[in-house]
């Protein structure tokens, strides 16, 4: 994967970022791999149409990768686009039709200003019945937070603990957009304003962390990012040609929920996460307690809190408590988002699901460096489209 960043890729198009990620994926294959060995390409790109005024980006990427004439298909399930591409690629391999496929995703968001990005992301909600009434994308998760606070007693301080933890992890990830802890950022921003902060909470409560959609403040939200991620999927009986230490996709799931959050019986849960994870656990033959490391879709801090409950890591209402207790930290009993999550690593929408797989590949092979989760044998990825109308879950093993 490329580094995710808000400035680094300013002069590039999505095609160039995607090529960069694909070349890196090929170069990372232990026994060598040429892109031309792939028999199909599945790629996620949420909104090339709005961000780059370019459609048909699957053919564009195949062309630029030099892999014509293999079939290339773009998959769009909002922020879960490349997670869904991984599932589709896996199903294509499992069908027996292909031995090796490329899957990945890309998003080039920084061509637009924040207002235009806000408008574009809101297209992933119900444009007629949510955005038309003023709901932004952060607003939908803010309403979920409001309901969670009200029904389960969760607090903004618990959300802050998630942001603090993900920045600690992001600081250990050379691919992350933000490689600084929140205290380091507080020190820098405070210095400019002549302010000093005792601790993270004092900074996060300050005017330097403005409200985006109450109760969510800036540091509860993932940033706007450019980036791409690509992985190679191979059938089990040919994988040995490429590596002696493959990471195995043990189970997968995907579920849909009502597009508008107002059509859900319970705002404090993403039902599609519960269903998709149940499918993936069953196929993999594992239980939530068996998961050693997870990458979950923390587009907002509340999303990580809810995910850790819906995936069965903690009971309902305990996700925030667990975060404050450090249980989801790198040395906790259930490490979540060791790569910094969307919060610190960045969230180029269409690339995120594939980037989670890249992290899982490193974690399960013991190659995650300073952010390595000890003895990680079973990993889980959860990739969410918008406010949970699509959820993709995969379980990986060594």
């Amino acid at each position, binding site marked *: 994967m490329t580094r995710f960043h808000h400035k680094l890729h300013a002069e590039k198009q999505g095609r160039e970022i995607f090529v960069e990620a694909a070349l890196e994926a090929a170069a990372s294959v232990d026994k060598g791999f040429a892109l031309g060995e792939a028999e199909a390409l599945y790629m996620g790109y949420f909104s090339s149409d709005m961000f780059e005024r370019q459609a048909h980006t699957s053919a564009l990427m195949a062309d630029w990768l030099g892999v014509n004439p293999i079939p290339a298909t773009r998959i769009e399930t909002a922020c879960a686009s490349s997670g869904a591409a991984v599932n589709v690629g896996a199903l294509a391999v499992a069908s027996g039709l292909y031995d090796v496929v490329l899957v990945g995703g890309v998003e080039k968001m920084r061509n637009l200003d924040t207002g235009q990005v806000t408008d574009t992301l809101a297209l992933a909600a119900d444009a007629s019945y949510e*955005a*038309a009434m003023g709901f932004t994308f952060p607003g939908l998760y803010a309403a979920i937070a409001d309901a969670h606070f009200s029904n389960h007693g969760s607090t903004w301080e618990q959300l802050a603990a998630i942001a603090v933890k993900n920045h600690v992890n992001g600081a250990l990830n050379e691919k992350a957009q933000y490689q600084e802890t929140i205290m380091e950022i507080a020190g820098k921003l405070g210095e400019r304003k002549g302010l000093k902060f005792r601790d993270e909470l004092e900074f996060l409560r300050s005017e330097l962390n403005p409200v985006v959609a109450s109760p969510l403040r800036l540091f509860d939200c993932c940033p706007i990012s450019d980036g791409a991620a690509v992985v190679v999927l191979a059938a089990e009986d040919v994988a040995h040609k490429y590596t002696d230490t493959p990471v195995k996709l043990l189970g997968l799931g995907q579920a849909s929920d009502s597009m508008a959050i107002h059509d859900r019986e319970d705002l404090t849960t993403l039902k599609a996460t519960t269903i998709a994870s149940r499918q993936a656990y069953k196929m993999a033959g594992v239980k939530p307690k068996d998961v050693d490391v997870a990458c979950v879709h923390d587009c907002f801090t509340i999303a990580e809190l809810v995910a850790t409950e819906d995936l069965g890591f903690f009971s309902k209402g305990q996700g925030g408590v667990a975060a404050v207790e450090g249980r989801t930290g790198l040395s906790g009993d259930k490490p979540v988002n060791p790569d910094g999550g969307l919060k610190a690593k960045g969230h180029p929408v269409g690339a995120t699901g594939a980037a989670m797989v890249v992290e899982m590949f490193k974690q399960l092979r013991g190659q995650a460096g300073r952010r390595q989760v000890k003895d990680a044998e079973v990993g889980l990825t959860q990739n969410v489209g918008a406010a949970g109308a699509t959820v993709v879950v995969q379980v990986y093993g060594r």
Partner: protein
Amino acid sequence: MSEFTTVDSFVKGLAEEKLKGCRCKACGRLMVPPRPICRSCGSTDLEPHVFKDTGKLTASTVIYVPLTRFQAMCPHSVGVVQLEEGESISGLILSDGKHLAPGTKVKAKYLKGEGRVTLSFQPV
């Protein structure tokens, strides 16, 4: 597809200051906005139903980074309202940028401007 099940019929209903949804004749399920297929039983045997325009807030948020169309009224609140019939809908919340607690009773107000009507609710 019956014309009372379309997005257009709901939007036109707002202009008449009505919350127009539908009711499934097979199972009785109420739906707002209306849908062409019952979300409970799958029936397409539906009839129009006009909803009461009062309810209570399930959840809301005050938006400080708005959609471009809502910039002039920012900060503004938006939320999910459970109508008296039990079904829920999203709407702009007219609260002068203040956060209203879940459970607050609200009544629909049909905000007109820029050639469209925005479903809104204000506390009662």
